[in-house]
């Protein structure tokens, strides 16, 4: 009783910081209490938001995966950014610079600038003794770095390694069609194919298999061979017929500055009479707008539409709900809840609920995108199956919070306009 008597004394002035802190925590407590009491209604109203967030997150994550697919496909053809093609020719005759001289010049210059990834790329021909007879194979000639520079996808086996560069028996990567003709021998048994070169038959070890496009209908006879091995195997005529592209993979941020230096130094190394071209071949080097911009905009458009539909449903339910809570709001006002506090508490109910729905939605989205069935499907198209994009999760959660805040504003305004006197009699 003594304590109670002390409380009727004039209260001490409240600390503004303490008041703000307790108001914030109090609003959260109120919001949680409201959600707990009306959990069935809240759950029903949040199904829409949860589904919207799931859809949004899946769409964003799907977009990221589609972007990855598109990026990888672009990189297979044009190389990874920043891929620079280097070519030297005589402007008068149009003749390409001699292979040996160009190879040496490119090697020297790229070593000088510490460029770790360079490759030649050309196409030649070789005959091979297959089980069903001799066939002429189209040979893609590359250096070891080419696989990384172009993300070459492999069906089986592994790309050329340093070890493969030093083999006595050349290593070869064959097409799936060719592999089928060889009886799909397990690569762990080191199957071989006999290449009929200038100096007689040479046994090449099959180290990997690339996918054959369906349209080849089993007739794809492509193989990949290291340039240096081809130079040893091919006849002089075959070698002379190969036109090599030289490629260097540069850091994108310094590519523009480095390209003129490479041109200048290669031209200098080749001597008078040669022009050196250096140009980007990767998808980011085309200039202008992002080639994936349309895809990204389409994904964002679908995501926003889905979210707006979820938000509309939530606003609708929240507005109906707040009209049923007028008396309760009046009671709270009579016990000291300020208009600002009521506004914040009603809005927080919406935010707390949607954040919760957002978490559930993101969780479902992760389960949808990362379950073994989906990842196995994605794996068919992408070399590097991306982890669940953190962006997608954050966008999903951020969107849920924003929708909660936006959807909470209207009912909060309605709640603030409640007249305490009328509300108590309600």
């Amino acid at each position, binding site marked *: *009783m003594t304590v*109670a*008597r002390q*409380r*009727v004394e*004039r*209260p001490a002035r*409240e*600390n503004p910081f*303490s*008041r703000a*802190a*307790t*108001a914030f*925590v*109090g609003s959260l*407590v*109120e919001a949680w*209490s409201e959600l707990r*009491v009306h959990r069935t209604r809240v759950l029903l109203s949040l199904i829409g938001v949860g589904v919207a967030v799931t859809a949004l997150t899946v769409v964003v994550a799907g977009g990221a995966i589609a972007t990855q697919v598109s990026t990888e496909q672009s990189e297979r053809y044009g190389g990874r950014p920043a891929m620079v093609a280097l070519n030297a020719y005589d402007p008068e005759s149009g003749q390409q610079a001699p292979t040996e001289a160009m190879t040496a010049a490119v090697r020297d210059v790229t070593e000088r600038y510490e460029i770790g990834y360079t490759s030649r790329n050309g196409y030649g021909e070789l005959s091979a003794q297959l089980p069903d007879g001799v066939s002429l194979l189209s040979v893609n000639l590359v250096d070891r770095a080419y696989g990384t520079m172009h993300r070459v996808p492999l069906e089986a086996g592994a790309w050329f390694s340093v070890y493969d560069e030093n083999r006595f028996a050349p290593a070869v990567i064959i097409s799936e069609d060719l592999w089928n003709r060889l009886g799909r021998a397990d690569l762990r048994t080191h199957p071989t194919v006999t290449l009929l070169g200038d100096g007689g038959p040479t046994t090449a070890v099959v180290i990997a298999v690339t996918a054959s496009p369906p349209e080849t209908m089993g007739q794809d006879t492509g193989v990949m061979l290291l340039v240096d091995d081809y130079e040893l195997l091919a006849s002089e005529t075959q070698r002379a017929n190969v036109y090599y592209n030289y490629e260097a993979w540069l850091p994108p941020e310094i590519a523009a500055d480095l390209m003129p230096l490479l041109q200048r130094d290669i031209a200098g190394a080749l001597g008078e009479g040669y022009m050196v071209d250096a140009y980007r071949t990767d998808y980011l080097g085309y200039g202008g707008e992002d080639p994936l911009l349309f895809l990204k905009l389409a994904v964002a458009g679908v995501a926003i539409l889905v979210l707006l539909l979820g938000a509309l449903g939530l606003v609708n339910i929240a507005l109906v709900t707040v009209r049923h809570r007028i*008396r*309760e709001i009046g*009671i*709270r*006002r*009579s*016990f*000291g*809840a*300020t*208009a*600002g*506090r009521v506004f914040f508490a009603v809005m927080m109910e919406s935010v707390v609920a949607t954040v919760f729905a957002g978490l559930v939605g993101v969780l479902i989205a992760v389960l949808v995108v990362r379950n073994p069935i989906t990842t196995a499907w994605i794996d068919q198209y992408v070399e590097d199956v991306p982890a669940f994009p953190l962006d997608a999760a954050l966008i999903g959660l951020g969107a849920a919070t924003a929708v909660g805040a936006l959807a909470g504003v209207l009912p909060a305004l309605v709640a603030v306009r409640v007249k*305490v*006197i009328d509300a*108590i009699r309600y």
Partner: protein
Amino acid sequence: MAFLHLEGVAKSVELPDGERLDILKGVDLTVEVGEHVSVVGRSGSGKSTLLNILGLIDAPTSGRLEFDGIPLERLGNADRDRRRGRDVGFIFQQFNLLARRSALENVMTPLLYASGRQFWRRERLATEMLERVGLGGRLASTPDQLSGGEQQRVAIARALVRGPRLILADEPTGALDVETGASVMELLDSVAESTGAALITITHDPNVAALARRHYRLDRGVLAPVDVNRVLAIAESGVTL
């Protein structure tokens, strides 16, 4: 020092047909901390309007009102709300408990708008207050699990939990039978007296009004003191105002 001071307070509203309706006319009233004042009057006499003005829920159309020595016009809306939460405890005829919340949660509600120790220790304070009104064993009961008398005791605990300096009871026994009403009033009177808070009871029941130390009658918006003997006589006759 007077906690509440009303001087010439009037309240009028404009009716839809443009006519003006005077609800309160020149009300003068001074209430000190620790006093128990009753206001009796028939339905429509302006009792609830007066209570709303005393509790800073409504504002007078004219006249002067000082709350804790501060003129009403010097208090902003948020400040009025905060002072109402801190200094005024309401008890309603229909209890106005929050449905589907336990007795403890109902009593904790006003403490959500407090700050400092009252806020952080709200569960303990609410439990203690419910124990004081004899409901220590019904903390988890929701309003629909409580009798009318128990609900009003929860409402009393809720009104008192922040230690208000003014308790405004609007027909506190109006929804209760005579016996339960008497016990509730006894409780309210004793708890108000023990906390030293001013208690203003607005009622049309002379038996309830008779428990106060000072008595007023509100008739057609005019507040006038009533002799306690007259109130007692009315109470004994069994008539309600």
